[in-house]
């Protein structure tokens, strides 16, 4: 694992990317996504949190603002969350080659691991029901709770800037976890509310300008 994390906060985030060619970036994206998806259990949100650690904090290739937009787009477009975010990150950093490289990196470990274990499923099931292995899974998932919360804290700083944002964030959290409403329904409701609020603001601004 290379530990060249000397790209400090001082440099503007995109500067780290400017020095590299598209193909070089794509190659690094491919390898980074392989590393993330071959180690991170728990699917989409865990992989998004890991990608944020990798590309914002370690490499400084993306800003917090980029990640916020990445998560927003990822959840609005249909598809597997982890793959949506990989395509977005790849496209943002290196265009089409980057998008394809990140996507291939995100799916390759699954292909290899699943094909390798599919043949011996009963042995795999025995293995994962051992107490130590179950314990290791619980430890891993607990670590992912911390990772996803760290992502949420950083998002919160950027997002929670008006009362409406608090209402929508709380509404979607409670709607999903307490009342088990489908995410698709919550997403559509939030978009409708946002567009309504924005049109209202624009109208009022125009009204104010006329007076």
């Amino acid at each position, binding site marked *: 694992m290379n530990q060249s994390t000397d790209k400090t906060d001082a440099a503007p985030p995109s500067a780290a990317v400017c020095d590299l060619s598209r193909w070089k970036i794509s190659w690094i994206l491919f390898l980074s996504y392989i590393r993330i998806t071959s*180690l991170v259990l728990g699917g989409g*949100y865990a*992989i998004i949190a*890991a990608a944020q650690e990798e590309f914002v*904090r370690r490499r400084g290739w993306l800003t917090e603002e980029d990640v916020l937009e990445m998560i927003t787009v990822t959840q609005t*477009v*249909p598809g597997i969350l982890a793959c949506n975010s990989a395509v977005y990150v790849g496209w943002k950093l290196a265009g089409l080659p980057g998008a394809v490289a990140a996507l291939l990196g995100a799916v390759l470990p699954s292909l290899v691991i699943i094909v390798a274990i599919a043949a011996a499923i009963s042995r795999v099931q025995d293995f994962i029901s051992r107490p130590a292995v179950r314990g290791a899974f619980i430890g891993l998932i607990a670590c992912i709770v911390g990772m996803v919360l760290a992502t949420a804290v950083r998002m919160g700083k950027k997002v929670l800037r008006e009362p409406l944002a608090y209402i929508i964030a709380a509404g*979607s959290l409670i709607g999903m976890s307490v009342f088990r409403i489908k995410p698709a329904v919550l*997403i559509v409701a939030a978009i409708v509310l946002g567009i309504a609020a*924005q049109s209202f603001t624009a109208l009022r601004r125009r009204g104010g300008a006329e007076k």
Partner: protein
Amino acid sequence: MTLPGLYLIFFKFGLLCFGGGYILIPLLQSELVGADKPLRPQEFADLVSVAQVTPGPIGINTATYVGFTQQGICGAVLATFGIVTPTLVLVILAANVLKRYHESIPIQGFLRGMRPASLGLVLAAALIFAEMSVFRGVIPWLKPELWWGFLCGVRPAALAIAAATLAILWKTRCSFIYLLLISAVLGAFLCR
């Protein structure tokens, strides 16, 4: 199922899977599991349980696995490519629309509503992960009489791992990969 058939049906799942992988499993179940369908219920249950404890996107793990049971390695590859093809096109399209019309009222409104909603959904995901690790089972939100008993079932070691991870990621630039590996080792001893 034929190879082109596998690609096409997973392409369709890729388009329908709106709001993340949560919806994929019921979708697969209704289309692929049953007496006259390719998978038997027991086979499908095994497959889902393995897909969830394997690293990687759960949707991709499931697609790969279903493809493999139907047509071997070629099936696994085609099912996976099928489910990600719509993603590649739609995400790039969405990224461009967002960039081009960034200042327009609908896009500003979309972002104004969708950003906080994303935050809410990320927090809800953290709760789901907590239910799998820190807590024992699903939080009984609507049954206040069960809350105390539920809190007593918290796994202290898992809670400590989650809190330590949050604190370390917040304050340092430590790579998450080490945190994951250390957590797994700690969990194997402390979270039985």
